[in-house]
């Protein structure tokens, strides 16, 4: 349908007329054709029925006689009727009599009468034959429709030819007749096209009909007349407007300011060519763009929101400064003024305004502001209080916030004051003198409004402030600094005290090995004062330490703690064991180390002692196992020797009787013995046995046993008894004359009683005295007379017996091994080498005390027996 309406009026009319006629014809023809076909078919049926009846009537006789040939002849007559296909005759019983077939074939399906005709596209007529009211037979006629179809076909063909001709006629008529209506309309359309194209309002549509189209023509011509009149009027107005606009445009375009106009979306509708100068763009480039597109980013944002607000309120834009980016890239500052533009309805349609380049003005302004800002910032942001006061009146004119904060005055209060009023009373005169020298910081003490003192440093300088000759004082509060200095001093002292209270020697060195720290213990140990060693090299100050600086430097470099143990004679009072620890330090990137020295002699001594007593215990264990085995044979030896002695020298009856029996007198035998010196030999065996027994017994004493027969005893008394015993000792008397040794005794007053096994302690003392006497027998210090110095005292919850001789002393090796079992300096046979070991064992194991020895070659020896005092004093 759409395509239909798009067609021209002419074509549409043709289509309408044509289709109406064709449709009408088609319907009429169809109806006629239908009826005619019906008639033709009915004719055929009636004709066929008539033939069947006629033939049936003719055949009555034949049937009567059953004359088949006659019947056949009768039926053959039907050959003249060309549409009959076949005819069959049946008798009353329905039996086949005769048949005719136009094709000549005898159909065999008609042997008996079939009352219901088959549906085979043929017309079957079965008609009974009556004679005198009796049914004498039947005739079956089969007619072909071919003839009828032929006729219908011819008929339809005729109709189609007529229809085609009629249609062609209709088309011709339609195309001719439409012109009557379409022509005037098309004519009008042509005129209209001409007018609109050529703007020629003088043309009129000519017409001669009085119908509706005529009215249309008249109306059209009237309208053209009116339009032509208005057009003329407008042309005149436009000319006037153009002249006016030209005037304004030249005004606008020659103006030094840039004039523009935007719509409500802030898109430029108009821009004056001045923009070329201001922003470097061609005016055309700006049309359709918005002012924000050219502004610096942050301005674009703020100006956009400002404009949105302005347009909402329909306000004018006044003196809006904005930074724009010139096409060349630099910033141009514009001052924008504008007014809203309204249409006749009072609706806002945009803004119109001018922009002026104020870049230079703005720049100068900003520079000034920056400069002022800079100084303002300095003035306000300096954390130090600043006072500005008049040189002549001394009145404070201005100050910064820190000044207010620090002094707790308000600005109004300060304006009533002079700087001198801030000083602590008594400093005013000083102030006057000091102002003479500007720029040099002066130290004062100020008092705040709350009376809090402030230590300050002030620098003053003259300046012109608001056209006044003024002076500016920058005040630095140094209270904190002074407090910090104090705290630092305190910390330093504190650290120094810590270092000095350490029981270790602590020496700090820098990366060059120069001493930076030297604590009290170091001073007391070496006798060197701190002042004398600071800055000196460690090697030079402590050469004995055998701690090469390289090692310390290595530790510093590797950042590893270095530990070693050495022996040194730092205080010149004998070798000491020292633990050296080097801690590398990094303080503020400056390398150094702390060296710690600890005297561990005591610990090492104790360790040695522990090893010693372990050794003895193992000897004791061995001896215990061995004793029985040795004692038995020893008993055998000694007992037998005694029996031998008895039997040789004893005045026994058995001896006499045995001598008698041998015919020898006992005196003769004894004489013989005397000559052969048998008795001393037997005594020697005896003595050897006894010594062996003694050794075994001593060794057995090393085995730990807890038979506590300890009683509280007076040590001084015990010592006296022992001395007496020593004086009478057979062995001592034999080898050293104990009586000739000088004995110096001293003891603490009111010595407490000490729990001990007196005989054992006596044994210990005796042992030490024997050793001392023996040593002094060899030599004495400076060949002075031999002497023992004995001292009994209490020390550290221990009762001490000190026994000092002035013998030859011992070297370190001997001193360390002196308590070792079987260690002896005496020639073989002189001592058993167990005396001091047993003593040591008695003191340490049986009494839980300590036995120590101090000695150096040529300086004698001091043995110290320490026995624990009972903690609960009785």
């Amino acid at each position, binding site marked *: 349908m759409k395509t239909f309406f798009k067609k021209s009026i002419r074509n549409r009319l043709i289509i309408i007329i044509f289709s109406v006629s064709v449709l009408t014809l088609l319907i009429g023809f169809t109806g006629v054709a239908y009826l005619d076909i019906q008639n033709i078919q009915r004719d055929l049926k009636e004709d066929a029925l008539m033939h069947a009846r006629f033939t049936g009537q003719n055949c009555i006789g034949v049937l009567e006689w059953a004359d088949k040939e006659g019947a056949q002849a009768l039926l053959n007559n039907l050959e003249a009727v060309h549409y009959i296909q076949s005819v069959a005759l049946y008798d009353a019983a329905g039996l086949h009599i005769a048949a005719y077939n136009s094709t000549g074939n005898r159909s065999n399906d008609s042997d008996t009468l079939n009352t219901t005709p088959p549906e085979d596209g043929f017309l079957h007529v079965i008609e009974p034959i009556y004679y005198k009211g009796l049914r004498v037979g039947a005739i079956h006629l089969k007619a072909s429709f071919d003839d009828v179809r032929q006729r219908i076909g011819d008929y339809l063909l005729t109709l189609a030819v007529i229809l085609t001709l009629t249609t062609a006629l209709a088309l011709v008529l339609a195309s001719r007749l439409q012109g009557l209506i379409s022509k005037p309309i098309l004519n009008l359309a042509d005129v209209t096209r001409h007018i609109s194209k050529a703007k020629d309002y003088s043309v009129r549509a000519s017409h001669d009909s009085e119908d509706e189209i005529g009215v249309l023509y008249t109306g059209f011509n009237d309208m053209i007349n009116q339009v032509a009149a208005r057009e003329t009027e407008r042309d005149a107005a436009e000319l006037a407007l153009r002249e006016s606009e030209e005037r304004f445009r030249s005004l606008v375009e020659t103006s030094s300011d840039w004039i523009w106009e935007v719509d409500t979306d802030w898109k430029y509708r108009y821009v004056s060519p001045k923009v070329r100068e201001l922003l470097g763009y061609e005016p055309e480039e700006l049309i359709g763009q918005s002012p924000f597109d050219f502004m610096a980013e942050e301005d674009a944002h703020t100006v956009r929101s400002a404009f949105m607000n302005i347009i909402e309120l329909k306000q004018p834009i006044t003196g809006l400064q904005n930074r724009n980016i010139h096409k060349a890239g630099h910033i141009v500052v514009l001052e924008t003024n504008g007014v809203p533009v309204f249409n006749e309805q009072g609706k806002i349609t945009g803004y119109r305004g001018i922009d002026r380049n104020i870049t230079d003005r703005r720049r100068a302004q900003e520079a000034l502001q920056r400069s002022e800002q800079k100084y303002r910032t300095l003035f306000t942001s300096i954390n130090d209080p600043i006072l500005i006061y008049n040189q002549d009146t001394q009145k404070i004119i201005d100050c910064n916030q820190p000044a207010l904060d620090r002094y707790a005055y308000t600005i109004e209060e300060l304006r009533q004051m002079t700087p001198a009023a801030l000083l602590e009373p008594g400093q005013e005169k000083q102030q006057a003198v000091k102002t003479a020298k500007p720029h040099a910081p002066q130290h004062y003490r100020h008092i705040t409004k709350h009376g809090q003192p402030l230590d300050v440093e002030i620098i003053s300088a003259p300046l012109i402030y608001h056209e006044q000759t003024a002076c500016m004082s920058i005040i630095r509060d140094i209270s904190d600094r002074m407090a910090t200095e104090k705290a630092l001093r305190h910390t330093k002292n504190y650290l120094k005290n810590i270092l000095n209270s350490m029981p270790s020697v602590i020496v700090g060195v820098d990366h060059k090995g120069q001493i930076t720290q030297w604590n009290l213990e170091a001073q007391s140990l070496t006798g060197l004062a701190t002042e004398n060693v600071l800055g000196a090299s460690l090697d030079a100050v402590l050469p004995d330490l055998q701690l090469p600086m390289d090692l310390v430097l290595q530790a510093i470099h590797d950042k590893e703690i270095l530990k070693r143990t050495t022996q040194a004679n730092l205080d010149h009072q004998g070798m000491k064991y020292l633990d050296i620890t080097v801690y590398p330090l990094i303080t503020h990137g400056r390398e150094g180390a702390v060296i710690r020295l600890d005297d561990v002699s005591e610990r090492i001594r104790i360790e040695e002692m522990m090893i010693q007593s372990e050794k003895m215990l193992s000897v004791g264990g061995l001896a*215990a196992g061995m*004793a*029985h*085995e040795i*004692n*038995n*044979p*020893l*008993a*055998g*030896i*000694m*007992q*037998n020797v*005694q*029996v031998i*002695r*008895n*039997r040789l*020298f*004893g*005045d*026994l*009856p*058995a*001896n006499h009787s045995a001598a008698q029996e041998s015919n020898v007198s006992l005196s003769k035998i004894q004489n013989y013995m005397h000559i052969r010196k048998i008795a001393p030999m037997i005594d020697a065996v005896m003595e050897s*046995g*006894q010594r062996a*027994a003694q050794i075994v*017994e001593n060794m*057995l004493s090393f085995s730990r*046993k807890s038979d506590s027969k300890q009683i509280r005893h007076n040590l001084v008394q015990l010592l006296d008894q022992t001395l007496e015993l020593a004086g009478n000792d057979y062995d001592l008397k034999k080898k050293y004359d104990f009586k000739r040794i000088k004995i110096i005794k001293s003891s603490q007053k009111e010595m407490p009683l000490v729990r001990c096994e007196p005989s054992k302690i006596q044994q210990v003392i005796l042992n030490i005295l024997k050793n001392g006497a023996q040593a002094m027998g060899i030599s004495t210090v400076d060949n002075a007379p031999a002497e023992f110095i004995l001292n009994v005292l209490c020390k550290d919850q221990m009762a001490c017996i000190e026994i000092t001789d002035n013998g030859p002393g011992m070297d370190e090796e001997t001193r360390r091994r002196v308590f070792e079992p079987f260690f002896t300096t005496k020639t073989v046979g002189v001592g058993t080498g167990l005396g001091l070991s047993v003593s040591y064992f008695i003191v340490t194991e049986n009494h839980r005390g300590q036995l120590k020895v101090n000695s150096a070659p040529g300086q004698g020896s001091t043995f110290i027996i320490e026995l624990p005092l009972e903690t609960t004093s009785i």
Partner: protein
Amino acid sequence: MSTTADIGPNKQIKLLIIDDEDSIRLSLAAYFEDMDFEVQTAETAETALDLMNKHCFNLGIIDMRLPGKDGNHFIREAHGRQPRMRFIIHTGSKQYLLPPALKAIGMTEREILLKPVRDMAIFNNLIQIMLHEGDGS
């Protein structure tokens, strides 16, 4: 060191010496025989107990470590048979402690002599003291 003066009274004193070590047992026997004691010896406690069936002893010198029954055992048994018999313990072990059973029959530390006994006279003296005590009681 001769003690010949003491010989006489020892005639009637019967000693029993038990020690499995020949040199000790025989030397002790020789010594006491020389002192005129009447001495019987045994190597083991068992033999000694047999001897006690035939003899009555005043005193025994007993080694502790013996094959078979030990010295302690023997003393308890011997005391059961001859309550008046006294004993001296003769041992090589310094750790020897007097068992309560022996303390119960009146024995003391004094009656313990450690081998080697330096002087044989110590035996004799102790025997004299012990036997005199016995007489006194």
